[in-house]
């Protein structure tokens, strides 16, 4: 019980950062762009591998 109380007191003293609306919008814009970029890169690697190797992509030494 005492331990929980001391943690709550400690959290009260923590210096926290709160985002403004502009900062939230900017963060969302960056997150969406990064998500799209990563998805496109995965797609590019997938399609590129098929284009480069063709049916050979299935041939693997066992």
């Amino acid at each position, binding site marked *: 019980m005492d331990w929980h109380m001391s943690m709550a007191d400690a959290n009260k003293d923590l210096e926290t950062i709160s985002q403004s609306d*502009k900062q939230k919008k900017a963060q969302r814009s960056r997150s969406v762009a990064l998500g799209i970029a990563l998805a496109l890169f995965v797609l590019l690697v997938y399609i590129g591998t098929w284009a480069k190797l063709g049916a050979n992509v299935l041939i693997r030494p066992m």
Partner: protein
Amino acid sequence: MALVEQNRNGENAARLSEARASDYIALLKPRVMSLVVFTGFVGLLVAPGHMNPVLAVIAILCIAVGAGASGALNMWYDADIDAVMKRTRNRPIPAGVVSREEVLVFGLVLSVFSVMTLGLFVNWLSGALLAFTIFFYVVIYTMWLKRSTPQNIVIGGAAGAFPPMIGWTAATGMVSWESVVLFLIIFLWTPPHFWALSLFTTNDYAAARIPMMPNVRGEASTRLQILVYTLIVAPVGVLPWVMGFAGPVYGVVSTALGLAFVAHAWQLWRAPSAEAALKRAKALFGFSLLYLFGLFAVLFCETLAQRAWTWIGI
């Protein structure tokens, strides 16, 4: 998790980033990138042989991202200069939207990804050429030449001239004389293009202490050198037709554009007053863009038409 930046004023307080995705796109210099993509694509298309269209798209994408990475790294290093010049003071770093550290990491990550992807999916020669182009633009031009010699854009222009060669190499796996000619066209076009620009932005460059030709050698000398370079680039621009990898339409158009380019440079050199020189420098700058775009556009259309005729059996 919020992206926290150090305060630009050197204070210990941190601030949350307000950079939007569009600010990161601005770091890639999209307008420069569009010219790079276009010339790179023409190099790839004109090259002999057949290339898988998916791999061709990947090659162009890598060239575009590599060019964007160079632009970002250029803005990282030149943030102090950009803050002084009117033309560049609204770029993301001097505007205080993105920190230099973020831009450095952004540029380096894109550089590595573009080179590795091009090497793995297309061929390592074009990957190596792209890596060299990024290195040349960032280290040789931005860090070394730009602030130390009025010949900065003469040598540094090589970085902008590599994309068609990379496109050619992506398609053929080798560097040939034809790709060297495409390289030379852009390389020799760069000095008159940028010196014309610097003639009407002299004060901006002087304020940023960049030794551009008009600041160091004077406007008269710059105008003469512009004329000399146009006299060289005009015949080189016709070489693709002479060497046989462009058709007669290109031959006619490149000759006409070359003569017009020389005529513009001649008029600038013979300008009777400072006001007339300013006006003619602006005209030459505009025409230089038309010249390069025209050459590569005709090369592109003519090659496409030839391929289409071959395909339908005419």
